[in-house]
Protein backbone atom coordinates (compact mmCIF):
# COMPACT_ATOMS: atom_id res chain seq x y z
CA UNK A 1 0.00 0.00 0.00
CA UNK A 2 2.77 2.36 1.02
CA UNK A 3 4.80 1.31 -2.00
CA UNK A 4 1.84 1.96 -4.27
CA UNK A 5 1.42 5.32 -2.66
CA UNK A 6 5.07 6.17 -3.15
CA UNK A 7 5.20 5.11 -6.78
CA UNK A 8 2.03 7.04 -7.44
CA UNK A 9 3.58 10.02 -5.74
CA UNK A 10 6.72 9.55 -7.79
CA UNK A 11 4.74 9.37 -10.99
CA UNK A 12 2.89 12.47 -9.89
CA UNK A 13 6.17 14.18 -9.11
CA UNK A 14 7.52 13.24 -12.55
CA UNK A 15 4.47 14.65 -14.28
CA UNK A 16 4.89 18.07 -12.73
CA UNK A 17 8.62 18.47 -13.32
CA UNK A 18 7.98 21.03 -16.05
CA UNK A 19 10.01 23.86 -14.63
CA UNK A 20 10.51 25.55 -17.94
CA UNK A 21 14.27 25.37 -17.54
CA UNK A 22 16.01 27.35 -20.26
CA UNK A 23 19.70 27.69 -20.98
CA UNK A 24 21.63 30.40 -22.77
CA UNK A 25 23.06 29.71 -26.19
CA UNK A 26 25.89 32.20 -26.80
CA UNK A 27 26.02 34.35 -29.94
CA UNK A 28 27.59 32.68 -32.96
CA UNK A 29 27.65 32.44 -36.72
CA UNK A 30 25.62 29.95 -38.67
CA UNK A 31 26.85 28.65 -42.01
CA UNK A 32 23.72 27.58 -43.90
CA UNK A 33 23.96 23.99 -45.13
CA UNK A 34 22.77 25.01 -48.59
CA UNK A 35 24.93 27.78 -49.94
CA UNK A 36 23.54 30.44 -52.26
CA UNK A 37 24.82 33.94 -53.05
CA UNK A 38 22.32 35.31 -50.52
CA UNK A 39 23.02 32.59 -48.05
CA UNK A 40 26.34 33.61 -46.47
CA UNK A 41 27.20 32.84 -42.84
CA UNK A 42 24.71 34.70 -40.72
CA UNK A 43 25.23 36.06 -37.21
CA UNK A 44 23.03 34.46 -34.57
CA UNK A 45 22.60 36.66 -31.47
CA UNK A 46 22.55 34.98 -28.08
CA UNK A 47 19.20 33.41 -27.13
CA UNK A 48 17.61 31.18 -24.52
CA UNK A 49 16.44 27.68 -25.37
CA UNK A 50 14.40 25.05 -23.49
CA UNK A 51 16.88 22.59 -22.04
CA UNK A 52 14.67 19.69 -23.14
CA UNK A 53 11.99 19.07 -25.74
CA UNK A 54 8.41 19.82 -24.64
CA UNK A 55 7.00 16.72 -22.95
CA UNK A 56 3.58 15.07 -23.19
CA UNK A 57 2.80 16.23 -19.63
CA UNK A 58 3.70 19.82 -20.49
CA UNK A 59 1.70 19.75 -23.70
CA UNK A 60 -1.33 18.38 -21.80
CA UNK A 61 -1.36 21.57 -19.70
CA UNK A 62 -1.49 23.58 -22.93
CA UNK A 63 -4.35 21.51 -24.33
CA UNK A 64 -6.29 21.86 -21.07
CA UNK A 65 -5.92 25.63 -21.22
CA UNK A 66 -6.69 25.88 -24.94
CA UNK A 67 -9.75 23.80 -25.87
CA UNK A 68 -9.34 24.53 -29.58
CA UNK A 69 -6.19 22.37 -29.46
CA UNK A 70 -7.99 19.27 -28.15
CA UNK A 71 -7.68 16.28 -30.42
CA UNK A 72 -11.41 16.23 -31.20
CA UNK A 73 -11.67 19.98 -31.74
CA UNK A 74 -8.57 20.87 -33.70
CA UNK A 75 -8.97 22.34 -37.17
CA UNK A 76 -7.66 19.88 -39.79
CA UNK A 77 -5.96 22.75 -41.61
CA UNK A 78 -3.72 23.12 -38.58
CA UNK A 79 -3.17 19.47 -37.62
CA UNK A 80 -3.73 16.29 -39.63
CA UNK A 81 -5.52 13.18 -38.37
CA UNK A 82 -2.44 11.91 -36.56
CA UNK A 83 -2.57 14.82 -34.11
CA UNK A 84 -1.86 13.44 -30.59
CA UNK A 85 -2.99 10.01 -31.76
CA UNK A 86 -0.78 8.34 -29.14
CA UNK A 87 -2.84 9.86 -26.31
CA UNK A 88 -5.75 8.01 -24.78
CA UNK A 89 -8.21 10.87 -25.21
CA UNK A 90 -8.56 14.64 -25.52
CA UNK A 91 -7.40 15.39 -21.99
CA UNK A 92 -5.62 12.20 -20.97
CA UNK A 93 -2.31 10.79 -22.08
CA UNK A 94 -3.54 7.53 -20.59
CA UNK A 95 -2.63 5.38 -17.61
CA UNK A 96 -1.14 2.80 -20.00
CA UNK A 97 1.18 5.47 -21.40
CA UNK A 98 2.71 6.41 -18.04
CA UNK A 99 6.19 5.76 -19.38
CA UNK A 100 5.89 8.61 -21.88
CA UNK A 101 4.47 11.37 -19.63
CA UNK A 102 7.96 12.71 -19.44
CA UNK A 103 8.94 11.87 -23.03
CA UNK A 104 8.87 14.46 -25.79
CA UNK A 105 5.41 15.16 -27.16
CA UNK A 106 5.21 13.99 -30.80
CA UNK A 107 2.38 13.84 -33.35
CA UNK A 108 2.09 17.63 -33.07
CA UNK A 109 1.88 19.95 -36.08
CA UNK A 110 3.95 23.07 -36.68
CA UNK A 111 0.83 25.14 -35.96
CA UNK A 112 0.31 23.36 -32.63
CA UNK A 113 3.97 23.82 -31.69
CA UNK A 114 3.77 27.48 -32.67
CA UNK A 115 0.58 27.97 -30.60
CA UNK A 116 2.20 26.28 -27.60
CA UNK A 117 5.23 28.56 -27.92
CA UNK A 118 3.05 31.68 -28.01
CA UNK A 119 1.08 30.44 -24.98
CA UNK A 120 4.40 30.12 -23.14
CA UNK A 121 5.44 33.54 -24.36
CA UNK A 122 8.21 31.89 -26.36
CA UNK A 123 8.97 31.10 -30.00
CA UNK A 124 10.01 28.18 -32.16
CA UNK A 125 13.73 28.26 -32.97
CA UNK A 126 14.77 29.25 -36.47
CA UNK A 127 16.89 26.75 -38.41
CA UNK A 128 19.90 28.98 -37.69
CA UNK A 129 19.17 28.94 -33.95
CA UNK A 130 18.48 25.21 -33.80
CA UNK A 131 21.58 24.26 -35.81
CA UNK A 132 23.78 26.63 -33.76
CA UNK A 133 22.48 25.16 -30.51
CA UNK A 134 22.92 21.58 -31.74
CA UNK A 135 26.50 22.14 -32.86
CA UNK A 136 27.80 22.43 -29.29
CA UNK A 137 29.95 19.41 -28.43
CA UNK A 138 28.51 16.83 -26.04
CA UNK A 139 29.58 16.49 -22.42
CA UNK A 140 30.78 13.05 -21.19
CA UNK A 141 30.37 11.28 -24.48
CA UNK A 142 31.17 7.68 -25.30
CA UNK A 143 31.02 8.13 -29.07
CA UNK A 144 34.10 9.16 -31.01
CA UNK A 145 32.16 11.73 -32.98
CA UNK A 146 28.77 13.39 -32.73
CA UNK A 147 28.03 12.68 -36.42
CA UNK A 148 28.69 9.00 -35.76
CA UNK A 149 26.24 9.02 -32.88
CA UNK A 150 23.60 10.84 -34.91
CA UNK A 151 23.98 8.50 -37.88
CA UNK A 152 23.62 5.49 -35.60
CA UNK A 153 20.38 6.96 -34.25
CA UNK A 154 19.08 7.88 -37.69
CA UNK A 155 19.66 4.38 -38.98
CA UNK A 156 17.75 2.64 -36.18
CA UNK A 157 13.98 2.22 -36.31
CA UNK A 158 11.82 4.22 -33.91
CA UNK A 159 11.74 2.58 -30.46
CA UNK A 160 8.39 1.09 -29.36
CA UNK A 161 8.29 3.38 -26.32
CA UNK A 162 9.85 6.81 -26.78
CA UNK A 163 12.43 7.36 -23.99
CA UNK A 164 12.10 10.26 -21.53
CA UNK A 165 13.77 13.61 -22.03
CA UNK A 166 17.35 13.80 -20.69
CA UNK A 167 17.91 10.17 -21.71
CA UNK A 168 20.62 10.82 -24.32
CA UNK A 169 23.38 13.40 -23.88
CA UNK A 170 23.76 16.95 -22.63
CA UNK A 171 25.81 19.38 -24.68
CA UNK A 172 28.23 22.13 -23.62
CA UNK A 173 25.43 24.70 -23.50
CA UNK A 174 23.45 22.47 -21.15
CA UNK A 175 20.89 21.36 -23.75
CA UNK A 176 19.64 17.77 -23.59
CA UNK A 177 18.86 15.39 -26.47
CA UNK A 178 19.51 17.79 -29.35
CA UNK A 179 20.01 14.58 -31.31
CA UNK A 180 19.16 10.95 -30.70
CA UNK A 181 15.62 11.21 -29.34
CA UNK A 182 13.28 12.94 -31.83
CA UNK A 183 13.24 15.30 -34.79
CA UNK A 184 12.30 18.87 -33.84
CA UNK A 185 10.21 21.50 -35.59
CA UNK A 186 11.89 24.76 -36.49
CA UNK A 187 10.12 28.04 -37.19
CA UNK A 188 11.23 28.17 -40.85
CA UNK A 189 11.45 24.41 -41.38
CA UNK A 190 11.38 24.38 -45.18
CA UNK A 191 12.60 27.82 -46.13
CA UNK A 192 15.90 26.47 -47.46
CA UNK A 193 14.29 25.19 -50.64
CA UNK A 194 12.31 27.12 -53.22
CA UNK A 195 8.61 26.76 -52.63
CA UNK A 196 6.57 24.84 -55.19
CA UNK A 197 4.93 28.08 -56.23
CA UNK A 198 8.15 29.80 -57.20
CA UNK A 199 8.91 27.89 -60.38
CA UNK A 200 11.61 29.52 -62.40
CA UNK A 201 13.15 30.94 -59.26
CA UNK A 202 16.88 30.17 -59.09
CA UNK A 203 16.36 28.64 -55.67
CA UNK A 204 14.41 25.83 -57.31
CA UNK A 205 17.69 24.50 -58.64
CA UNK A 206 18.76 23.75 -55.09
CA UNK A 207 16.28 20.99 -54.46
CA UNK A 208 17.71 18.45 -52.13
CA UNK A 209 17.38 15.33 -54.23
CA UNK A 210 19.57 13.12 -56.41
CA UNK A 211 23.23 14.00 -56.74
CA UNK A 212 22.28 17.63 -57.39
CA UNK A 213 21.57 17.81 -53.67
CA UNK A 214 25.32 17.75 -53.02
CA UNK A 215 26.29 20.55 -55.40
CA UNK A 216 25.84 23.46 -53.06
CA UNK A 217 26.21 22.25 -49.52
CA UNK A 218 28.69 23.49 -46.95
CA UNK A 219 29.87 20.02 -45.90
CA UNK A 220 29.21 17.08 -48.24
CA UNK A 221 30.34 14.55 -45.66
CA UNK A 222 27.83 15.75 -43.05
CA UNK A 223 25.29 13.02 -43.75
CA UNK A 224 23.49 13.82 -40.53
CA UNK A 225 22.76 17.37 -41.75
CA UNK A 226 21.59 16.03 -45.12
CA UNK A 227 19.12 13.76 -43.37
CA UNK A 228 17.86 16.59 -41.18
CA UNK A 229 17.35 18.96 -44.10
CA UNK A 230 15.71 16.28 -46.24
CA UNK A 231 13.36 15.53 -43.39
CA UNK A 232 12.50 19.19 -42.87
CA UNK A 233 12.07 19.66 -46.62
CA UNK A 234 9.34 17.01 -46.80
CA UNK A 235 7.20 18.61 -44.07
CA UNK A 236 4.04 20.65 -44.27
CA UNK A 237 2.72 22.74 -41.37
CA UNK A 238 -0.18 20.44 -40.51
CA UNK A 239 1.81 17.18 -40.52
CA UNK A 240 1.81 15.24 -37.23
CA UNK A 241 4.51 12.57 -37.12
CA UNK A 242 5.42 9.93 -34.55
CA UNK A 243 9.04 11.08 -34.17
CA UNK A 244 8.63 14.84 -34.55
CA UNK A 245 8.35 17.17 -31.55
CA UNK A 246 9.75 20.57 -30.58
CA UNK A 247 11.32 22.87 -28.03
CA UNK A 248 11.04 26.64 -27.66
CA UNK A 249 13.36 29.64 -27.52
CA UNK A 250 13.25 33.17 -26.16
CA UNK A 251 15.23 35.95 -27.76
Amino acid sequence: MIITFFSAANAQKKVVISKDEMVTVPAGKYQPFFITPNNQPIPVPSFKMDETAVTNAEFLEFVKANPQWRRSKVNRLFADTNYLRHWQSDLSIGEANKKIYNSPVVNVSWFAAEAYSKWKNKKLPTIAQWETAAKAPPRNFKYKSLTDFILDWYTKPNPKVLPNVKSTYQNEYGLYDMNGLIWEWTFNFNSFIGSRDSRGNDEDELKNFCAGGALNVSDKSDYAAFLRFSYRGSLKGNFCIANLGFRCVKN
Partner: protein
Amino acid sequence: MIQISKKEPHLKKAILPALLLLSFTFFMFSCKTNPGNNADESKIDTTLTGTVTAELTTAPNVPKPLTYTSPKKVMVTLETIEKVMPISDSSEYTFWTFGGQVPGNFIRVRQGDLVDFTLKNAPDSKMSHSIDLHAVIGPGGGADATATAPGQSTHFQFRALHPGLFVYHCATGPVPLHIANGMYGLILVEPQGGLPKVDREYYLMQGDFYTKGKYNAPGLQDFDETKALAENPDYVLFNGKVRSTTGPNALPAKVGETVRLFVGNGGPNLVSSFHPIGQIFTKVYMEGGTEVNHDVQTTLIPSGGAAIVEMKMQVPEVINLVDHSIFRAFNKGAIAQIKVTGAENANIYQKLKP
Protein backbone atom coordinates in the same frame (compact mmCIF):
# COMPACT_ATOMS: atom_id res chain seq x y z
CA MET B 1 7.89 -19.17 -94.40
CA ILE B 2 6.10 -18.89 -97.71
CA GLN B 3 5.73 -22.30 -99.31
CA ILE B 4 6.09 -22.35 -103.10
CA SER B 5 4.57 -25.31 -104.85
CA LYS B 6 6.79 -27.05 -107.41
CA LYS B 7 3.74 -27.60 -109.57
CA GLU B 8 3.38 -23.90 -110.29
CA PRO B 9 6.79 -22.64 -111.50
CA HIS B 10 5.17 -19.54 -113.11
CA LEU B 11 4.13 -18.43 -109.62
CA LYS B 12 7.72 -18.71 -108.43
CA LYS B 13 8.77 -16.15 -111.03
CA ALA B 14 6.11 -13.72 -109.90
CA ILE B 15 6.70 -14.17 -106.20
CA LEU B 16 10.46 -13.79 -106.07
CA PRO B 17 10.56 -10.10 -107.12
CA ALA B 18 7.64 -9.45 -104.78
CA LEU B 19 9.56 -11.09 -101.94
CA LEU B 20 12.60 -9.00 -102.71
CA LEU B 21 10.49 -5.85 -102.68
CA LEU B 22 8.84 -6.94 -99.46
CA SER B 23 12.14 -7.61 -97.72
CA PHE B 24 13.49 -4.27 -98.95
CA THR B 25 10.42 -2.48 -97.58
CA PHE B 26 10.81 -4.36 -94.33
CA PHE B 27 14.45 -3.32 -94.19
CA MET B 28 13.49 0.33 -94.69
CA PHE B 29 10.74 -0.03 -92.09
CA SER B 30 13.15 -1.53 -89.54
CA CYS B 31 15.48 1.41 -90.08
CA LYS B 32 12.64 3.79 -89.40
CA THR B 33 11.72 2.05 -86.18
CA ASN B 34 15.21 1.83 -84.79
CA PRO B 35 15.49 2.14 -81.00
CA GLY B 36 16.30 5.84 -81.22
CA ASN B 37 12.79 6.49 -82.44
CA ASN B 38 11.10 4.22 -79.93
CA ALA B 39 10.41 7.00 -77.49
CA ASP B 40 9.03 9.56 -79.91
CA GLU B 41 5.67 10.28 -78.37
CA SER B 42 4.15 11.20 -81.73
CA LYS B 43 5.08 7.75 -83.09
CA ILE B 44 3.86 5.54 -80.27
CA ASP B 45 0.27 4.91 -79.37
CA THR B 46 -0.59 6.80 -76.15
CA THR B 47 -4.40 6.82 -76.33
CA LEU B 48 -5.62 5.45 -73.01
CA THR B 49 -8.08 2.59 -73.08
CA GLY B 50 -8.83 1.98 -69.41
CA THR B 51 -7.27 1.73 -65.97
CA VAL B 52 -5.42 -1.20 -64.43
CA THR B 53 -3.60 -1.73 -61.13
CA ALA B 54 -0.03 -2.91 -61.54
CA GLU B 55 0.84 -6.34 -60.17
CA LEU B 56 3.77 -5.86 -57.79
CA THR B 57 6.07 -8.72 -56.83
CA THR B 58 8.98 -9.28 -54.49
CA ALA B 59 12.24 -10.80 -55.73
CA PRO B 60 12.88 -13.30 -57.19
CA ASN B 61 9.36 -13.18 -58.62
CA VAL B 62 8.36 -11.14 -61.67
CA PRO B 63 4.83 -9.95 -62.50
CA LYS B 64 3.14 -11.93 -65.27
CA PRO B 65 3.69 -10.67 -68.83
CA LEU B 66 1.12 -8.01 -69.69
CA THR B 67 -1.86 -9.20 -71.69
CA TYR B 68 -3.27 -5.85 -72.75
CA THR B 69 -2.31 -4.47 -76.15
CA SER B 70 -3.23 -0.79 -75.91
CA PRO B 71 -2.11 1.93 -73.45
CA LYS B 72 -3.68 1.99 -69.99
CA LYS B 73 -3.58 4.23 -66.99
CA VAL B 74 -1.63 2.06 -64.53
CA MET B 75 -2.05 2.59 -60.80
CA VAL B 76 1.13 1.91 -58.79
CA THR B 77 1.55 2.36 -55.04
CA LEU B 78 4.87 1.69 -53.31
CA GLU B 79 5.45 2.00 -49.58
CA THR B 80 8.82 2.85 -48.05
CA ILE B 81 9.48 0.73 -44.97
CA GLU B 82 12.51 0.79 -42.61
CA LYS B 83 13.10 -2.67 -41.23
CA VAL B 84 15.74 -4.69 -39.39
CA MET B 85 16.42 -7.90 -41.33
CA PRO B 86 19.23 -10.44 -41.51
CA ILE B 87 21.95 -9.49 -44.00
CA SER B 88 23.86 -12.74 -43.36
CA ASP B 89 23.52 -15.77 -41.08
CA SER B 90 24.69 -13.87 -38.01
CA SER B 91 24.41 -10.16 -38.90
CA GLU B 92 21.39 -7.90 -39.02
CA TYR B 93 21.07 -4.56 -40.71
CA THR B 94 18.50 -1.74 -40.71
CA PHE B 95 17.35 -1.86 -44.32
CA TRP B 96 15.39 0.98 -45.87
CA THR B 97 13.12 -0.58 -48.46
CA PHE B 98 10.46 -0.11 -51.10
CA GLY B 99 7.85 -2.61 -49.98
CA GLY B 100 9.62 -4.29 -47.05
CA GLN B 101 12.29 -6.21 -48.99
CA VAL B 102 15.54 -5.60 -50.83
CA PRO B 103 15.27 -5.10 -53.74
CA GLY B 104 11.94 -3.25 -53.90
CA ASN B 105 8.78 -4.45 -55.63
CA PHE B 106 9.11 -5.23 -59.34
CA ILE B 107 6.85 -3.01 -61.46
CA ARG B 108 5.79 -4.03 -64.99
CA VAL B 109 4.16 -1.58 -67.39
CA ARG B 110 3.89 -1.19 -71.17
CA GLN B 111 5.33 1.45 -73.45
CA GLY B 112 2.69 4.17 -73.88
CA ASP B 113 1.09 3.58 -70.46
CA LEU B 114 0.35 6.53 -68.19
CA VAL B 115 1.66 5.55 -64.76
CA ASP B 116 -0.25 7.04 -61.82
CA PHE B 117 2.26 6.72 -59.01
CA THR B 118 1.69 7.03 -55.25
CA LEU B 119 4.57 6.85 -52.80
CA LYS B 120 3.64 6.13 -49.18
CA ASN B 121 6.07 6.41 -46.30
CA ALA B 122 5.21 4.09 -43.40
CA PRO B 123 4.08 5.95 -40.23
CA ASP B 124 6.88 4.49 -38.10
CA SER B 125 9.66 5.48 -40.52
CA LYS B 126 12.35 7.66 -39.07
CA MET B 127 13.31 9.21 -42.41
CA SER B 128 11.78 11.06 -45.29
CA HIS B 129 12.00 9.16 -48.57
CA SER B 130 11.34 9.75 -52.27
CA ILE B 131 11.69 7.93 -55.59
CA ASP B 132 13.64 8.51 -58.80
CA LEU B 133 12.52 6.05 -61.47
CA HIS B 134 14.94 5.94 -64.39
CA ALA B 135 11.92 5.23 -66.64
CA VAL B 136 10.59 8.75 -65.98
CA ILE B 137 11.26 11.80 -68.09
CA GLY B 138 10.62 14.70 -65.73
CA PRO B 139 12.25 16.55 -62.78
CA GLY B 140 14.35 14.17 -60.71
CA GLY B 141 12.67 11.14 -62.30
CA GLY B 142 9.80 11.75 -59.87
CA ALA B 143 11.96 12.81 -56.93
CA ASP B 144 10.79 16.41 -57.25
CA ALA B 145 7.21 15.30 -56.60
CA THR B 146 7.79 12.66 -53.93
CA ALA B 147 9.65 14.03 -50.89
CA THR B 148 7.54 12.07 -48.43
CA ALA B 149 7.57 12.47 -44.63
CA PRO B 150 6.80 9.51 -42.33
CA GLY B 151 3.10 8.64 -42.39
CA GLN B 152 2.46 10.79 -45.47
CA SER B 153 2.04 10.08 -49.17
CA THR B 154 2.83 11.85 -52.45
CA HIS B 155 1.51 11.42 -55.96
CA PHE B 156 2.55 12.10 -59.58
CA GLN B 157 2.10 10.61 -63.02
CA PHE B 158 4.39 9.93 -65.95
CA ARG B 159 4.21 8.49 -69.44
CA ALA B 160 6.30 5.36 -70.03
CA LEU B 161 7.94 6.50 -73.28
CA HIS B 162 11.01 4.25 -73.56
CA PRO B 163 10.85 0.47 -73.50
CA GLY B 164 13.48 -1.20 -71.33
CA LEU B 165 14.43 -2.36 -67.87
CA PHE B 166 14.98 0.57 -65.52
CA VAL B 167 16.28 1.00 -61.98
CA TYR B 168 14.36 3.05 -59.43
CA HIS B 169 15.85 4.28 -56.17
CA CYS B 170 15.33 6.69 -53.30
CA ALA B 171 16.61 10.18 -54.11
CA THR B 172 16.42 11.82 -50.70
CA GLY B 173 19.59 13.44 -49.38
CA PRO B 174 22.05 12.01 -48.64
CA VAL B 175 21.15 9.80 -51.62
CA PRO B 176 24.15 7.43 -51.24
CA LEU B 177 23.01 6.46 -47.73
CA HIS B 178 19.44 5.73 -48.84
CA ILE B 179 20.75 3.57 -51.69
CA ALA B 180 23.37 1.90 -49.49
CA ASN B 181 20.55 0.88 -47.14
CA GLY B 182 18.74 -0.98 -49.92
CA MET B 183 16.36 1.55 -51.47
CA TYR B 184 16.23 0.34 -55.08
CA GLY B 185 14.25 -1.88 -57.39
CA LEU B 186 13.31 -2.42 -61.05
CA ILE B 187 10.58 -1.22 -63.38
CA LEU B 188 10.15 -2.97 -66.72
CA VAL B 189 8.58 -1.06 -69.60
CA GLU B 190 7.55 -3.71 -72.12
CA PRO B 191 7.76 -2.65 -75.76
CA GLN B 192 4.32 -2.22 -77.34
CA GLY B 193 4.66 -5.64 -78.96
CA GLY B 194 5.69 -7.26 -75.68
CA LEU B 195 8.77 -9.41 -75.05
CA PRO B 196 9.11 -12.83 -76.70
CA LYS B 197 7.55 -15.58 -74.61
CA VAL B 198 9.93 -17.58 -72.39
CA ASP B 199 9.38 -20.40 -69.92
CA ARG B 200 10.49 -18.64 -66.73
CA GLU B 201 11.28 -15.11 -65.60
CA TYR B 202 13.15 -14.14 -62.43
CA TYR B 203 14.21 -10.91 -60.67
CA LEU B 204 17.73 -10.41 -59.27
CA MET B 205 19.33 -7.20 -58.07
CA GLN B 206 22.87 -6.66 -56.90
CA GLY B 207 23.85 -4.19 -54.19
CA ASP B 208 26.90 -3.40 -52.03
CA PHE B 209 26.65 -2.89 -48.25
CA TYR B 210 28.94 -1.19 -45.73
CA THR B 211 28.82 -2.19 -42.07
CA LYS B 212 30.79 -1.20 -38.96
CA GLY B 213 31.52 -4.86 -38.27
CA LYS B 214 33.22 -7.22 -40.72
CA TYR B 215 31.40 -9.68 -43.00
CA ASN B 216 29.10 -11.84 -40.88
CA ALA B 217 30.04 -10.09 -37.59
CA PRO B 218 27.34 -10.97 -35.04
CA GLY B 219 24.48 -8.63 -34.15
CA LEU B 220 22.86 -5.52 -35.58
CA GLN B 221 25.38 -3.71 -37.75
CA ASP B 222 25.45 0.06 -38.27
CA PHE B 223 26.19 1.71 -41.62
CA ASP B 224 29.88 2.65 -42.04
CA GLU B 225 30.29 5.98 -43.85
CA THR B 226 34.09 5.70 -44.12
CA LYS B 227 33.95 2.31 -45.89
CA ALA B 228 31.17 3.59 -48.16
CA LEU B 229 33.17 6.64 -49.24
CA ALA B 230 36.19 4.40 -49.86
CA GLU B 231 33.91 2.12 -51.95
CA ASN B 232 35.09 -0.83 -49.91
CA PRO B 233 32.02 -2.95 -49.11
CA ASP B 234 31.72 -5.78 -46.59
CA TYR B 235 28.90 -7.33 -48.60
CA VAL B 236 28.11 -7.59 -52.31
CA LEU B 237 24.72 -9.28 -52.52
CA PHE B 238 21.98 -10.46 -54.81
CA ASN B 239 18.54 -9.69 -53.38
CA GLY B 240 19.74 -8.19 -50.12
CA LYS B 241 21.04 -11.16 -48.16
CA VAL B 242 23.87 -13.66 -48.20
CA ARG B 243 22.44 -16.89 -49.73
CA SER B 244 19.12 -15.20 -50.59
CA THR B 245 18.93 -17.24 -53.79
CA THR B 246 21.08 -20.33 -53.24
CA GLY B 247 20.61 -23.91 -51.94
CA PRO B 248 16.95 -24.41 -51.03
CA ASN B 249 16.23 -20.92 -52.40
CA ALA B 250 17.89 -21.52 -55.79
CA LEU B 251 15.75 -20.57 -58.78
CA PRO B 252 14.21 -23.73 -60.29
CA ALA B 253 14.31 -24.51 -64.04
CA LYS B 254 14.06 -27.57 -66.26
CA VAL B 255 16.19 -28.84 -69.13
CA GLY B 256 14.78 -27.48 -72.39
CA GLU B 257 13.39 -24.30 -70.85
CA THR B 258 14.43 -20.76 -71.65
CA VAL B 259 14.98 -18.64 -68.55
CA ARG B 260 14.91 -14.85 -68.61
CA LEU B 261 16.52 -12.87 -65.78
CA PHE B 262 15.76 -9.24 -65.08
CA VAL B 263 18.98 -8.15 -63.39
CA GLY B 264 19.53 -4.75 -61.81
CA ASN B 265 22.43 -3.20 -59.96
CA GLY B 266 21.48 -0.80 -57.21
CA GLY B 267 25.08 -0.02 -56.30
CA PRO B 268 25.66 2.38 -54.62
CA ASN B 269 29.25 1.95 -55.80
CA LEU B 270 30.17 -1.21 -57.69
CA VAL B 271 29.76 -2.15 -61.35
CA SER B 272 28.79 -5.80 -61.77
CA SER B 273 30.49 -8.26 -64.15
CA PHE B 274 27.49 -10.55 -64.28
CA HIS B 275 28.37 -14.10 -65.30
CA PRO B 276 26.58 -17.50 -65.30
CA ILE B 277 29.00 -20.28 -64.33
CA GLY B 278 28.38 -23.26 -66.65
CA GLN B 279 26.11 -21.34 -69.02
CA ILE B 280 26.17 -18.74 -71.79
CA PHE B 281 23.67 -15.94 -72.27
CA THR B 282 21.84 -16.63 -75.55
CA LYS B 283 20.52 -13.07 -75.42
CA VAL B 284 21.51 -9.95 -73.55
CA TYR B 285 19.36 -6.82 -73.81
CA MET B 286 22.41 -4.69 -73.21
CA GLU B 287 22.10 -2.22 -70.33
CA GLY B 288 18.39 -3.07 -70.24
CA GLY B 289 17.77 -1.27 -73.53
CA THR B 290 16.56 -2.50 -76.91
CA GLU B 291 19.87 -3.65 -78.45
CA VAL B 292 20.28 -7.41 -78.16
CA ASN B 293 23.64 -9.13 -78.05
CA HIS B 294 24.01 -12.91 -78.42
CA ASP B 295 26.30 -15.61 -77.05
CA VAL B 296 27.66 -13.58 -74.15
CA GLN B 297 29.76 -14.93 -71.27
CA THR B 298 29.82 -11.90 -68.96
CA THR B 299 27.84 -8.70 -69.20
CA LEU B 300 28.51 -5.43 -67.43
CA ILE B 301 25.72 -4.04 -65.32
CA PRO B 302 26.51 -0.49 -64.22
CA SER B 303 25.54 0.86 -60.85
CA GLY B 304 22.08 2.32 -61.39
CA GLY B 305 21.66 0.14 -64.49
CA ALA B 306 20.18 -3.17 -65.55
CA ALA B 307 20.25 -5.95 -68.14
CA ILE B 308 17.80 -8.55 -69.38
CA VAL B 309 19.55 -11.86 -70.01
CA GLU B 310 18.28 -15.19 -71.34
CA MET B 311 19.65 -18.72 -71.25
CA LYS B 312 18.52 -22.03 -72.71
CA MET B 313 18.70 -24.77 -70.06
CA GLN B 314 20.62 -27.62 -71.77
CA VAL B 315 21.80 -30.01 -69.06
CA PRO B 316 21.01 -30.61 -65.40
CA GLU B 317 23.33 -28.47 -63.27
CA VAL B 318 23.49 -25.72 -60.68
CA ILE B 319 24.29 -22.46 -62.46
CA ASN B 320 26.12 -20.07 -60.17
CA LEU B 321 25.29 -16.49 -61.12
CA VAL B 322 28.14 -14.32 -59.91
CA ASP B 323 29.76 -10.93 -60.08
CA HIS B 324 32.95 -12.13 -61.81
CA SER B 325 34.98 -9.56 -59.92
CA ILE B 326 35.41 -12.81 -58.16
CA PHE B 327 36.47 -11.87 -54.62
CA ARG B 328 33.00 -10.40 -54.31
CA ALA B 329 31.46 -13.78 -55.12
CA PHE B 330 33.91 -15.77 -53.04
CA ASN B 331 34.13 -13.58 -49.93
CA LYS B 332 31.36 -11.00 -49.98
CA GLY B 333 28.25 -12.94 -50.93
CA ALA B 334 27.70 -12.16 -54.64
CA ILE B 335 26.27 -15.56 -55.68
CA ALA B 336 22.79 -16.60 -56.78
CA GLN B 337 21.86 -20.00 -58.22
CA ILE B 338 19.62 -21.61 -60.82
CA LYS B 339 19.02 -25.30 -60.20
CA VAL B 340 18.34 -27.07 -63.50
CA THR B 341 16.71 -30.51 -63.34
CA GLY B 342 16.03 -32.97 -66.15
CA ALA B 343 17.69 -35.53 -68.37
CA GLU B 344 21.43 -35.59 -69.04
CA ASN B 345 22.50 -34.83 -72.60
CA ALA B 346 25.85 -36.49 -73.38
CA ASN B 347 25.96 -34.64 -76.69
CA ILE B 348 26.42 -31.41 -74.80
CA TYR B 349 28.25 -32.43 -71.66
CA GLN B 350 29.49 -35.58 -70.03
CA LYS B 351 32.02 -36.33 -67.39
CA LEU B 352 34.42 -39.09 -68.50
CA LYS B 353 36.40 -41.66 -66.58
CA PRO B 354 40.11 -40.96 -66.34
